[in-house]
């Protein structure tokens, strides 16, 4: 079972990319992925992400193997009721928070995180999307510090938190804290460096890592090759490839039919 914990639909304003359902399904076929957790790219830039989330849910409706992680802006006064509304949709398995894009600290998201947990949703916190050296000059977005997400997880033991897009040096620096928190996981989308996945697995354990492509923002093949080159023991590879995600997002672990086109 293989799950992509970070895929997207929609356009990114600074680059010529546009994630479509057809493209996503083609990518999943190419990499033999069974399921994907999908968020709307435009919502990173919308103060109120509700319309982009609704559009995402319409596009995913009836699609086997595609799950939604709508983006929530905790600075919106109705964020809590928005989560309640989203949680009624069976395709929604998580919410994604983008602190750098919406201008808040991870600590300020505590209420929203605990609200999501009350509805059984996992919470993905996006540390970054792009290398900070190469941001568009009109849109420089500070990374969300991993230590803030760690503190949030420590203070919210009833939640399932995923820190997305951490770098290997950040993971290594905070490995002990990450290992100690049973409710915190990491996606592998932005891990880089020689033997990066193997090293991350050594310092935090394979049970903490979720396969993630960041498609269509990144070439999905990069994540696939990174996974293969790690040469993890079989059980650990299965955990990273999909079993951890199934556990965190409440997905079926039996082999499923190919995602519907």
């Amino acid at each position: 079972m293989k799950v992509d914990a970070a895929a997207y639909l929609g356009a990114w304003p600074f680059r010529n990319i546009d994630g479509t359902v057809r493209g996503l399904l083609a990518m999943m076929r190419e990499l033999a992925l069974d399921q994907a957790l999908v968020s709307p790219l435009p919502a990173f830039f919308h103060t109120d992400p509700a319309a982009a989330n609704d559009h995402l849910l319409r596009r995913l409706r009836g699609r086997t193997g595609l799950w939604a992680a709508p983006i929530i802006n905790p600075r919106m006064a109705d964020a809590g009721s928005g989560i309640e509304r989203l949680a009624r949709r069976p395709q929604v398995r998580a919410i994604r928070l983008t602190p750098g894009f919406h201008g808040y600290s991870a600590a300020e998201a505590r209420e929203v995180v605990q609200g999501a947990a009350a509805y059984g949703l996992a919470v993905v916190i996006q540390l970054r999307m792009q290398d900070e050296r190469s941001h568009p000059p009109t849109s420089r977005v500070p990374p969300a510090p991993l230590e803030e997400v760690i503190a949030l997880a420590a203070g919210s033991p009833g939640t399932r938190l995923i820190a997305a897009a951490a770098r290997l040096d950040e993971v290594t620096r905070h490995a002990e804290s990450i290992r100690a928190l049973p409710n915190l996981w990491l996606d592998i989308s932005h891990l880089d460096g020689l033997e990066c996945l193997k090293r991350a697995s050594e310092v935090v354990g394979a049970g903490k890592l979720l396969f993630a492509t960041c498609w269509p923002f990144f070439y999905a093949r990069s994540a696939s090759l990174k996974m293969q080159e790690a040469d993890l023991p079989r059980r650990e590879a299965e955990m990273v490839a999909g079993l951890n995600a199934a556990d965190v997002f409440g997905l079926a672990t039996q082999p499923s039919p190919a995602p519907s086109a």
Partner: protein
Amino acid sequence: MTRVDSAPGSHDPIIDIHAHPGYSLTLDGLREECRQLLREADRHGVSQVCLNAIADWSESPAPERVREGNDAVLALMSEHPDRVLGLCYVSPRHQDEALDEIDRCIGAGMVGIKLWVACKASDVLVDPIARRAAELRVPILQHAWYKVDGQLANESTPADVAVMAARHPETMIVMAHLTGCGERGLADIAPYGNALVDTSGGDPEAGVTELAVRRLGAHRVVFGTDSPIRSYGMTLGKVLGAKLSPAERALILGRNAARLLSRRAWPERSRGTGQ
């Protein structure tokens, strides 16, 4: 060890034009790091790796540190003769020593020159080095990046590389860091046929390799990882995941580098000695 299906069906060589032996400051440490690097390269079928040791990673190192780094690369070349190629790192701020070092290292079998952040590529201090590279028919791998958060004091932008390429049309220049140079960087060097770009630098942002091929042509894009800073999988994904023809992919992964690195002439004073 599991072999990754990086280039299914391809028997073309894969050459990494941009890698470093490691972070260690001792030869024994670099030996171990190089073994790790070659192990990962093996998994992906990367046949040859061009190593450059940028001394002690300081911006403008002393000539003795430069020489130590190059000695380490020469040692690794002799220990892995079929796998490791060497690029000679020098600082243009120490002109005489730099030219002597280039002659020494190319004479001992290195196949190119590496310039980093000691001096901008557009600085006249680089001119004698660029001329020597043309005489020896070896490429210069030149660091470059457009950083929105500020360049280092003497760090080159792609515009600096374009100045260098215009001033030295006989010198082959590989501008490092495709993703870091981006659309602007490709536009900067596009008019200069002696300037290529390597695929290293930054995250595997989708579309960047296709953009480089559209701007420069596949014959001016070469595979480079910047390993150990980057993983082979992440960087190979930029080429294997891009919408390219098999011929374009083969050029980028190895044929362009093979062509570029086979032009070398021996330095006059060490011709045939290997010293």
